[in-house]
Each structure stands twice: as C-alpha cells, then as structure tokens.
C-alpha cells in the first residue's frame, strides 16, 4: 500500500485539478486556474518519484526532459492561428501514451492472474487510446490543410464502421478470455482505424468539436489506466477530463446550433456535396480601397465581422488602427464575434486579444446581431461561413442550422476576401452576390494598410 502522505499528496493534486477546471471557466480566474492545475501535475510527478520504487531513473528523467523540451518549444513556437492543431496533437500523444501504458501493463498482467475488471480496463485503454491518437492525427491534417477539409465519405462507410465496432467488441472479449498480446495489437489497430473513420466525415469547420470529443476520450482512457495501475489520482483526473470534456463538447456544438450526431455523421446522409467547390462566374460588385474608404468615412455605425482569414494574414493590428481612426472620426465601431469564428469556439477572442483589441469592443453574437439593421457598413474580413445565409435557407448545406450573423441586413456590406474561393466549410455564399455587397479583393493585411492610408488621407 502506498504511504499515507503520498495518498494525501495525490488527493491534493486531484483537488488542484478540480480548482483548475473551475478557474478556467471564468475569465478572471482562468490563468490562475491553469497554473494551479500545472502545480497539481508537478506535485503528482514529484510524489511518484519519491514513493514508488522507480528503477532506470536516469533514462526516465532524460525522457521527461525530452518531452518537456518538445512540449515547451511547440507551445511557444506555434502561431496563435495554428493553436487548435497543436491542442489536437497534444491530445493525440496523451492518448498514445495511455495506450502504451496499458499495453505494458498487459504484458505484466498476462504473467500472473489478472482480474476481469483489470482486463476490461486494459482493453478499453488500448482501444480508446488508439482512437484518440489516430483521430487526433487526422484532425491535425485537416486543420493544417494537409488533406481536404471537406467531409470524406465513401460507399460502404457505414458497413466498414459497423465491422470495426464489431471487431473491437470481439477483440475485447478475446483479450478478457485470453490475455495475449495478439489481441492487444489487434485492438490498437482497430482503434486506430475507428479513429480515422470517426474524423473523416467531419467537415473542416466542425473539426474542433471533434478535438474536444477526443479530448474527453483520452480523459476516460487515463481514468481506466488509473484503475489498472491502482492509482486513484489518474482515475480522478481522467474522469474529470472525461466528463467535463463531454459537456464542453456539447456546449460547443450548441454554440453552433448543431447536434453532435449531426456533426459526426451528418455527411453520411449525403447532403454535403451541395454547393461543392464550383466557383461560379456570377457577377459581383468589386471596388478598390479608395472607394471603401469613402464608404467608411461617411458611416456612423460600423460593425466588423472578423474571421480566420484576418488572423492568417496577421492583419489584426492594422485593423485595430483602422478602428481607432474610425472612432476618432466619431463612428461607433464594434466587433461581432461569432461563437465559432476562427477555427474553434472562442478562438477569435484569443486572436483579437493578441492584437490588444479592448475587450469591451468584442460583442458576442446574441448582443450584436439585432444591431446589423442599424449599421451603415458591415465590414466582413476574412470570414465567410459565419455570415453565409445558406445556414438558414439551404437545408442540406453542411452548415445548415448554424446560427449566423445577419451582416446581410446592414445598409452596405463590404467583403474583404483573398479570392472567390468558398469558405472552410466549402459552400458558396449568396451574400457575395447581394446588391448591397461590395467586394474588396486582396491579402487582408495589404488591403487593410491601403484602406487605412486612404482613410487617413480623407481625415486630414
């Protein structure tokens, strides 16, 4: 039995994790909450070295150092725009680690007499850990646009999926009846296959929801491995993440007005080919920076709809200068933040906070949406899907049912876009062809600088 003070230390770490999650759900306490969580994790690691009979100390410390270096470098190097991918990768390696731990435990268990519960926990950890690992890799590829961001479905998908689930069940039973490594390897392979299949049909815009789901999965595998190793802290921490992550996934899906089932399997119903990738040649009205500057110069009420394209072009800082100038000229300017603007819920807030946009100017969707009717200009920068009326008018579109910002109700709509390419969800946007819409083509940062210069010239 582990020493009492070590158990108390684990309890303290578990409390740290609960306080951390609590802190992370409110803006004022979020940062402190995260630090408390980190302190709990460090405490737990120190305890395990002190009380458990750890051999191979040097190689293990070296491995921790290598992992820490990779983690810190990754976390500091990553651009804020690419952060969702990084979280997906971190989650994937965590799931992989849990699967390996269970694998090794199985080797030890199979030597002696293992209880049924132990074996079930082993099978679960290997299977779900592999799902999480492989699924996270596919989400990474989608977000990094190394593969198509559109939903991938093929004939026979449901059959393959069903067979995969059956195989997983069969191998689990096999492993419990006859604890052998063959079943473990088979489970890992099936798990990886199921992980890939789980993420393939999910459209690019929905991928972050899946990261959150896989995050919850990894939490549960950690909980199961805690049972396996007889470590209560792992059980508690894993379960906390599993349940909080599941709820968070649902909250995120709600923010998009979608059900989780629809996000995961909606593409299988076949509606997703709608709007495909055809770039239409219908007439649009485009203008130069000078024209748009004049439009803005006479506007009293401007609402800005920022999107991922803004962040990719690193144009947030120039945008802030533009907004400052408009405010000096007496216009009322706000940012309309769609819950899923960017690549993840809340992502846009992070990106604009990075550009030091005052928090009060960021208006959430429910608050700002009715005000579009009074707006002289809605300036849509690098956003597309979040203002696409197809979400309301076209059943079967991948984003159908998602609440949108009604930029179309503003007197004038200015779209800053790189090209006529459709958005991340791959659907054409009717708003581009509306008579009140003006398009301003070009790289967001470049165009924004020109716009700023023109507006300055008008101001002097």
């Amino acid at each position, binding site marked *: 039995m582990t020493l009492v003070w070590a158990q108390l230390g684990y309890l303290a*770490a578990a409390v740290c994790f609960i306080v*951390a999650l*609590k802190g*992370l*759900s409110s803006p004022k306490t*979020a940062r402190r*909450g*995260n*630090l408390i969580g*980190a302190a709990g*994790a460090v405490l*737990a690691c120190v305890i395990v*070295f002190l009380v458990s*009979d750890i051999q*191979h100390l040097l*190689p293990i410390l070296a*491995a921790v150092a*290598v*992992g820490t270096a*990779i*983690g*810190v470098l990754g*976390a*500091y190097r990553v651009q*804020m725009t690419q*952060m*969702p991918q990084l979280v997906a990768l*971190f*989650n994937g390696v*965590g799931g992989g*680690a*849990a699967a*390996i*731990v269970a694998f*090794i435990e199985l080797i030890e268990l199979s030597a002696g007499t293992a209880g049924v519960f*132990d074996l079930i926990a082993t099978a679960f950890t290997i299977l779900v850990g592999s799902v999480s690992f492989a699924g996270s890799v596919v989400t990474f590829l989608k977000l990094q646009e190394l593969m198509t961001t559109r939903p991938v479905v093929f004939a026979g998908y449901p059959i393959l999926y069903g067979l995969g689930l059956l195989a997983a069940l069969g191998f689990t039973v096999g492993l419990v009846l006859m604890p052998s490594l063959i079943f473990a390897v088979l489970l890992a392979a099936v798990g990886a296959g199921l992980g890939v299949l789980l993420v393939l049909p999910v459209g690019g815009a929905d991928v972050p929801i899946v990261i959150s789901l896989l995050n919850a999965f*990894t*939490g549960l595998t*950690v909980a199961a*491995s*805690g*049972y396996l190793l007889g470590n*209560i*802290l792992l*059980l508690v921490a*894993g*379960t*906390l*993440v599993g*349940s*909080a*992550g599941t*709820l*968070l996934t649902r909250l995120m899906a709600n923010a998009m007005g979608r059900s989780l089932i629809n996000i995961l399997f909606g593409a299988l119903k076949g509606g997703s080919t709608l709007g495909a990738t055809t770039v239409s040649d219908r007439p649009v009205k485009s203008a130069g920076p000078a024209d748009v500057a004049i439009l803005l110069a006479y506007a009293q009420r401007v609402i800005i709809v920022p999107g991922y394209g803004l962040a990719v072009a690193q144009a947030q800082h120039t945008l802030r200068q533009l907004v400052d100038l408009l405010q000096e000229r007496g216009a009322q300017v706000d940012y309309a933040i769609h819950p899923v603007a960017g690549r*993840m*819920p*809340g*992502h846009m807030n992070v990106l604009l*906070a990075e550009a030091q946009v005052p928090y009060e100017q960021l208006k*959430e969707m429910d608050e700002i949406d009715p005000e579009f009717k009074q707006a002289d200009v809605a300036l849509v920068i690098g956003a597309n899907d979040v203002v696409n009326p197809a979400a309301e008018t076209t059943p079967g579109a991948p984003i159908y049912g998602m609440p949108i910002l009604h930029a179309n109700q503003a007197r004038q709509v200015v779209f800053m876009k790189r090209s006529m390419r459709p958005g991340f969800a791959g659907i054409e946007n009717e708003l581009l062809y509306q008579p009140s819409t003006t398009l301003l083509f070009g790289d967001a940062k470049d165009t924004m600088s020109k716009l700023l210069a023109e507006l300055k010239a008008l101001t002097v």
Partner: protein
Amino acid sequence: MNTDPIIWLTIFVLAIFVGVEVISKVSSTLHTPLMSGANAIHGVILIGAILVAGTAQSTPILVLGLIAVILASINMVGGFVVTDRMLVMFSRPKRALQKSERRELEP
C-alpha cells in the same frame, strides 16, 4: 491489486458529477482555453508512464515505457504552457501589453 472495484466505481461516478458541475457555467469565450487546459490535465498519464517504465524488467519494455514518458510529458507540459499563452492575452495589464508588442515588432 485493487481490493474492491466498488470503491473505484464510486470514485469514478462521483468524479463524473464533479467534472460536469465545475464547468457548467463556462462562457463561450473560454471554450478554447478550457479545452486546452483539460487536455493538459490528462497529461498526468505521465505518472502512469513513469510507473511502468520504472518497473520495466526488459529492455524492449523499458523502451516502450520511455516512449510513453516522452509522449505524456509533451502532453502535460506543452498543454499547460500553451493554455497559459492563450490566457495571458486575456488578462495582460496595459504596460506589459506595450512591451510585448514592441518585442513582436522587432524581429
């Protein structure tokens, strides 16, 4: 090893409710940092990885265990650091803001 599975089941079920309760009032602004923070917390699988690596009896198992240790530390350390990076942006005081802005412009 595990004397009574019922005790473990009890802890498991209670922890589920705690997990749901503590984040039930999160604002949508914080969804991303919360996901990232929760992601870092399951990095404590690191102690599981250390335990299995530390009791490895053969070289292949030790190597596997060490791989798990590396992966888990990436998850844990990287997770907490990137979450902190996100959250700093929400809560920076004005002066610190300008300093870091200058730093960003330099390179």
